[in-house]
């Protein structure tokens, strides 16, 4: 019985998180919010050196980004204007760009395809489908 209660409670928490994420997207994706930005732990010269190895999509995003030195020797700030189209997709690409520049590889959200459909699992699947495209970036 306790297990069932916990399962229901866990489902509720999972669903609530999905709602929170959804609300977050609405607020974050409001038109005119401005820019999406990341800081990469590389100097401008290092960014240039690594840009040559980027694929077309990441290279195009880097070309769009405004670069400024980050304070305290923290690297380079990359800012991309919100052009009003596919802000979530831009966010995901910006995450991947930072990963590729800093580590030399990308780590896109994990794939849960093929898992059995469970109530909590379905809610979690929805959250994870948005896990790279949403958030506070």
């Amino acid at each position, binding site marked *: 019985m306790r297990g069932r209660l916990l399962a229901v409670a866990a489902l509720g928490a999972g669903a609530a998180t999905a709602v929170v994420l959804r609300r977050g997207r609405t607020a974050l994706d409001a038109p005119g919010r401005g820019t999406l930005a990341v800081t990469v732990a590389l100097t401008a010269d290092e960014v240039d050196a690594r840009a040559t190895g980027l694929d077309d999509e990441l290279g195009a995003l880097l070309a769009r980004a405004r670069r400024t030195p980050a304070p305290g020797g923290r690297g380079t700030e990359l800012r991309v204007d919100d052009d009003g189209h596919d802000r979530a997709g831009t966010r995901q690409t910006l995450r991947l760009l930072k990963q590729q520049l800093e580590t030399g*590889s990308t*780590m*896109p959200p994990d794939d849960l395809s093929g898992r059995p459909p469970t109530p909590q699992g379905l809610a979690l699947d929805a959250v994870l489908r948005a896990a*790279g*495209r949403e958030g506070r970036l």
Partner: protein
Amino acid sequence: MRAVQWTGVNEVSTGDVPDPAIEQPYDAIVKVTASVTCGSDLHLLGGYIPFMRHGDVIGHEFLGEVVEVGPGVRDRRVGERVVVSSFIACGSCWYCRQQLFSLCDNGNRNPAVTETLWGFAPGGCFGYSHALGGYAGSHAEYVRVPFADVGAFPVPDGVEDLRALFASDAAATGWMGAADLGEVGPGDVVAVWGAGGVGQMAARSAQILGADRVVVIETDPYRRAVARDQLGCDVLDPQDALGDALLDLTAGRGPDVCIEAVGMEASGATGPLAALDKVTQLARVQTERITPLREAIYHCRKGGRVAVLGVFAAWADRFPLGALMNKGLTLRGAQMHGQKYIPTLLDLMARDELAPEYLATHVLDLEDGAEAYRLFKEKDDGCLRAVLRPGGV
């Protein structure tokens, strides 16, 4: 391959899963030789961290042999016996450069979940839910280790498996709590709440760092006895006039450093606050039961340091902010930065100064994953930690 999987709230079983493969150039595949249950796993099993998916492989504290490396791996070699940090870190981002590896910008593949919950995403962790990256865990025959040059460390000859194993997480967490968060030094009196693996490693670390006296506070009499006998610590039952005992022990000053090593499912506490915690946690009005943390803050001396090592998920009620502020305490917490501590810990282990193998009270075959967690959760048969060994005990 075979692996221990989470299949529902309070349900685990050993089943078949696909073999891991090199996915990124900096990956290694490690053949697991020992993987141990951790108290934080119980939060996953119980559904308190609702980001588990049916079939997820659990386990994050492990040791094994490198059997394959990606083309970008430079330092690790096939055949090496390695202990692996439970937290996954890239080694390149700003946080990793500060040696704050568990805060890695690039280790968590699902950043939106924890960005939304906590403001920013920490790094990833093996087998610790999709909130921390959704990586397959180590209770398996094989595990993929991302950024292997950063997170996998060769074990010195002469350090046995069941000793080195705990450098992966429990010893690293305890060391962090004493050395970095608590800044323990000679002359300090250190109080540690919780005599599980992490608490005992925090206590031992404080001794190594020169603490004048270490007291372990634990509700379970067996665990108190282990801490006393194995480490030579003072031990106290928190329900037995704890405040008076700590004042007596410190001649009225209070402990200089208080380390919480219990986490969100503190058990054994009594009284109206503890009862309210239990009800509100079950109803998900709050996610934590924090009696030990309240006690740590209350009993810490003025100007003292409180380190939070237990795992918490979201929010807690009736947090003693007044005591924290008015006594001028420093409160710090973190998931452990294993990549920073493991070399030091392996060196201490090689010199027999740190010998945590006594924590491995039960060693079972991987096929006995469910029994391992039953023993561990129920503290049955004096279980401190249950170790799973793929391929047989």
